[in-house]
């Protein structure tokens, strides 16, 4: 416990010292909110003001950014640079290392999400729907799990930061712009509105969170959409584990006896 706490505090310290990451994490959702909020101020989706819907959507972006571009990048870098082995030789397992990095990233996300919600409150008086806290938190957890599963799969496949970093960024952008997170799905061509449910699973997280946030069941179904997203997560984790096993068996040293 003491080891995990020390490592988590250490990761947190480093996370908040990395100015470009901090700025991107804090300013990106705020910038998007101001920009798209202004552009789409008169737009409505399912009788909900679109500006109100931007807040949950950008929370998903915050989570995606933290997991793909902070946790994933730090994890791959630690693996590649030998830092993971350095800690292993100090008695810190890879699992414990990644768990503490995960917790630190989680705290980082929470700080950014709370700051973003406070910003929107002071910026245009948007109020967090406290009465729907439970389904919102449950959905956010599922979205978080999905992102970690996606990163786990990516890391199983891509061991070098030179490969991971651009691909993770591309996937993050793909998810953000083609997952209905920056502007409404209704603005997409009709065929894409249907195809997106097959090519971008985060859409289920989006629907679940918007439904939980607004209480509007015409957007989606909290339990069903969360279960679908969880199924994708399980699939990614299983695929990642299979990949890990295949790649590990190719590299493991075997003993030669004469």
């Amino acid at each position, binding site marked *: 416990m003491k080891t995990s706490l020390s490592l988590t505090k250490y990761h947190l310290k*480093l996370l908040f010292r990395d100015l470009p990451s901090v700025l991107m994490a804090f300013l990106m959702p705020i910038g998007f909110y101001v920009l798209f909020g202004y552009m789409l101020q008169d737009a409505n989706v399912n009788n909900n003001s679109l500006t109100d819907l931007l807040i949950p959507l950008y929370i998903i972006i915050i989570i995606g950014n933290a997991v793909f571009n902070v946790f994933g990048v730090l994890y791959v870098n630690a693996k590649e640079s*030998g830092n993971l082995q*350095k800690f292993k*030789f100090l008695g810190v397992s890879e699992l414990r290392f990644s768990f503490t990095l995960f917790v630190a990233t989680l705290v980082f996300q929470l700080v950014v999400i709370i700051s973003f919600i406070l910003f929107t409150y002071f910026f245009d008086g948007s109020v967090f729907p406290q009465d729907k806290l439970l389904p919102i938190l449950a959905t956010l957890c599922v979205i978080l799990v999905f992102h970690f599963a996606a990163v786990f799969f990516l890391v199983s496949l891509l061991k070098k930061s030179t490969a991971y970093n651009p691909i993770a960024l591309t996937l993050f952008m793909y998810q953000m712009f083609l997952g209905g997170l920056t502007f409404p799905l209704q603005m997409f061509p009709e065929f894409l509105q249907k195809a997106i449910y097959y090519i971008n699973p985060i859409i289920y997280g989006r629907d679940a969170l918007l439904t939980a946030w607004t209480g509007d069941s015409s957007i989606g179904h909290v339990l069903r959409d969360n279960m679908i997203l969880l199924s994708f997560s399980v699939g990614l984790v299983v695929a990642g584990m299979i990949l890990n096993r295949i790649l590990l068996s190719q590299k*493991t*040293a075997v003993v030669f006896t004469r």
Partner: protein
Amino acid sequence: MLLELKEVSVRYRGAERNAVDRVSFSVEENQIVSIVGHNGAGKSTLIQAIMQDIHYAGQITYGFPEKELYKWIRVQTQTSTFEKKAKVKDMVQLYIQLTDSRETVEALLESVQMQDFKHAYLEKLSGGEKQKIAVLLATIGSPKLIILDELTTGLDVVSRRMIWDLLNKIRRDKGISILLTSHFLDEVEYLSDDVIILERGAVKQHGTVGELVEHAFDRSKLATSLTDSSFRYADLRYKYTKHKNKLMIEYRVEQERDVFDNLQACGGYDIRLQQRTFEEAFLKLIGYQLDEKGETK
């Protein structure tokens, strides 16, 4: 005995030969043992085996329960990378916490005269300063053995000397044994009690620096003398080689007085009687030299 390897072998899947081939040696308390070898000789694989990080054949035993391996043995590599944005005090503090040590950041930094760097970012330190911190980190929690894998590679001469002094100080003050891998022969000669020369995964030679030199040159020494046109070669009683005006004679220890007198009598000047160096012995025993990057030349 702190560490003992018996007939340790490792082969990677798909490889045609063993990366480590039936290696045996031991490390005693308060001893510095060096493993010398070219790149790919198996030094790093051997360290992985010692740290139980790889499958191996043979036997590795420790002078403590194996489950306490990470407590009593520390490893630092030449690529002692530190996390981006980590400060010296953060790293030292983290190691203190992870190893359950009672030492303080201030006392530890003072022990290596690095107090002024307490708030410095590790990435901003020079190569020598970084490695000094790396060595310091390896000693936190009072391990019994530290393994330093090519720690001084890429450092300038002054920084390397600084690290050597630090290693000697650690051994003297804390009684910690050190297992060093290196391809700097002067470093090995200066620091080591025992040397293992590894070639293609196998132990080619093993002994103290003195033993290896003796083995290579059979207690012979080298006399050099400068000569000019008045030098009387007819009176010289020893077999010699000559390079420009420098004359060299290989002789046995008991002949030393006579060699000196003979050279002087013949008119030689700037006469030097030298011990053979480890580098010369390495060249004679192994048949090649190592460059700064560990490649053979």
